[in-house]
């Protein structure tokens, strides 16, 4: 257990992507990997193997005094939260309340937005993910994300799933086949597509595409899954399928889901956080939030008085 933990620490404890690739470049100019290839690279190796094998290790999320600004706009105000492992946590709230923005801080997708400033502490498994030493690519590998609109790549189903493993250097056909099959089975899609893995993914239905995106994330062997309104673009039947899938996946993954649909939150989540104007108004067990909210604003929202 102990060794696993230290391995995970090492995994997150890495240089930012740019620097990392530079050191990688340096390391790789030598024909054979040697001990002098660089400490960072060495750390990478140990950690990733361990990370892929270990199913234990802590992957809880701790946030303390998180503030986020888009230019002059104060999008998140002093947010604090503790998200437990292997639970489904739902973020609810009206549009523009900052719940999606907050979700994206967990895999640093906000890095893409210019003049987005984040202060405060966000830790995953005890590691500050905004520390200089964090390898963003490894962070994103461990913290998968499902987007609002299904975004399969315009390539075959197989290539979609194999994207992440290939990105991390797996080339062997048999290993890839195995990963593809396992991921598709986990996402409940194998039966439907096993005979057309080489067909373009864009030809699938919306619900299938979204499950393909989930399978694609699972192929990276993440520990946490972030879902940003994953069913808002889908019909009710596909929504039901995805919700069932979330219930199955939570035994092995920590899931954070942003949703506009309060029934969905009650159906699938263990804990719920209610966001309003960039703040968490209330956070607790889902049944508590919906049955006996302590804050008047939460009550108004869940009873449909605004939003």
């Amino acid at each position, binding site marked *: 257990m102990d060794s696993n933990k230290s391995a995970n620490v090492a995994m997150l404890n890495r240089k930012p*992507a740019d620097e990392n*690739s530079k050191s990688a470049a340096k390391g790789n100019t030598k024909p054979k990997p040697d001990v002098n290839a660089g400490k960072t690279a060495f750390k990478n190796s140990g950690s990733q193997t361990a990370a892929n094998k270990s199913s234990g290790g802590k992957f809880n999320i701790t946030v303390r005094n998180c503030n986020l600004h888009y230019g002059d706009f104060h999008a998140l105000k002093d947010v604090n939260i503790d998200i437990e492992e292997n639970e489904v946590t739902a973020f609810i709230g009206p549009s523009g309340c900052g719940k999606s923005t907050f979700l994206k801080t967990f*895999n640093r*997708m906000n890095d*893409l937005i210019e003049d987005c400033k984040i202060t405060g502490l966000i830790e995953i498994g005890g590691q500050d993910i905004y520390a200089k030493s964090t390898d963003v*690519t*490894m*962070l*994103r*590998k461990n913290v*998968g*994300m499902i*987007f609002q*609109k*299904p*975004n*399969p*790549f*315009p*390539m075959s189903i197989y290539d979609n799933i194999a*994207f*992440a493993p*290939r*990105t*991390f250097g797996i080339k062997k056909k048999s290993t890839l086949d195995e990963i593809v099959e396992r991921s598709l089975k986990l996402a409940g899609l194998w039966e439907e597509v096993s005979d057309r893995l080489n067909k373009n993914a*864009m*030809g699938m239905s*919306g619900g299938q*595409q979204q499950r393909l*995106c989930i399978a*694609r*994330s699972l192929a*990276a062997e993440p520990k946490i899954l972030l879902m940003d309104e994953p069913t808002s*673009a889908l019909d009710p039947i596909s929504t039901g399928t995805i919700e069932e899938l979330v219930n199955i996946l939570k035994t092995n993954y920590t899931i954070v889901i942003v949703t506009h649909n309060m029934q969905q939150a009650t159906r699938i989540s263990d804990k719920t956080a209610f966001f309003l104007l960039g703040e968490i108004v209330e956070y607790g067990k889902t049944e508590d939030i919906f049955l006996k909210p302590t804050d008047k604003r939460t009550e108004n929202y869940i009873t449909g008085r605004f939003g």
Partner: protein
Amino acid sequence: MNKAYRFIKARDSIMRGIFTFCAVFSIIALGCICVFLFANGIPFIGRVGLTNFFGTTWNFNVQAYGVLSMIVASLYVTALSTLIGVTIGLFTAIALYKFCPKHLVGPIRQMINLLAGIPSVLFGLFGMILIVPVLRDYISPTGVGYGILAASLVLSIMTLPTIVSVSLDALNAVPRNYYEGALALGATKEQSVFKVMLPAAKSGILAAVVLSIGRAIGETMAVIMVIGGSPVIPKSLFQSVRTLTANIAMGATELSGDAKTSLVAAGVVLFFFTLLLNISFSLLKGGEKREKKRASKANI
């Protein structure tokens, strides 16, 4: 009142007729071009015979009008210039797409577009005063600077702006959520661009390639000044040869009679190549549209 109304009605239909004529003018012009070209070129080919016309000997003193060596030279020049131009242009587009600092992209794009405005005869001149002498003095094993390599270099510079701007547009048209999806899976910026965005833009990029092939095969003035002009089958990159277009332009000022009609026949061959490229270009465009439709359908 009634009179005024009738006047307006009449004016409307007259103008409508004029506008229609203007629009149909393109069709008429295209029709005329085809008729004149074919009516003069094809009988000529029939008269001298296919074996003569598609033979390797070009000597109008003995009525040998073989254009095979020119077709081969044209194809070599087009292939090599496209290869060079696409390599440089595509990578340039990729750099401008995601890797260049944002504030430099606009100016660099504008500078490359400047190239598109330079008359082709000036590229020929540039090739004549710089590329040919450099090749002759430093690179060519035969001591000849003229030839396929010189023409290809000149043409690849010429087609650069087309390739850069069409491929950059194609890349920019790829939905951004592919990029985000790739990053969210742990890919680096470079991996996302090369493994996801680039393949997603492939039909647009292919269109750029076809467009540049069209420009290369049809270009005359830039080629004529650096190609040399000998009507022989090319055996080396550094050897005076003659492309179809160069043949037409060179003959235009020197020949008369039957020999001049042979240029029309060469033009028919060129026209045929261009039509092929046009058709494949519109097919590719159609493919791009279909892909976009599919992407937008998926995003509903």
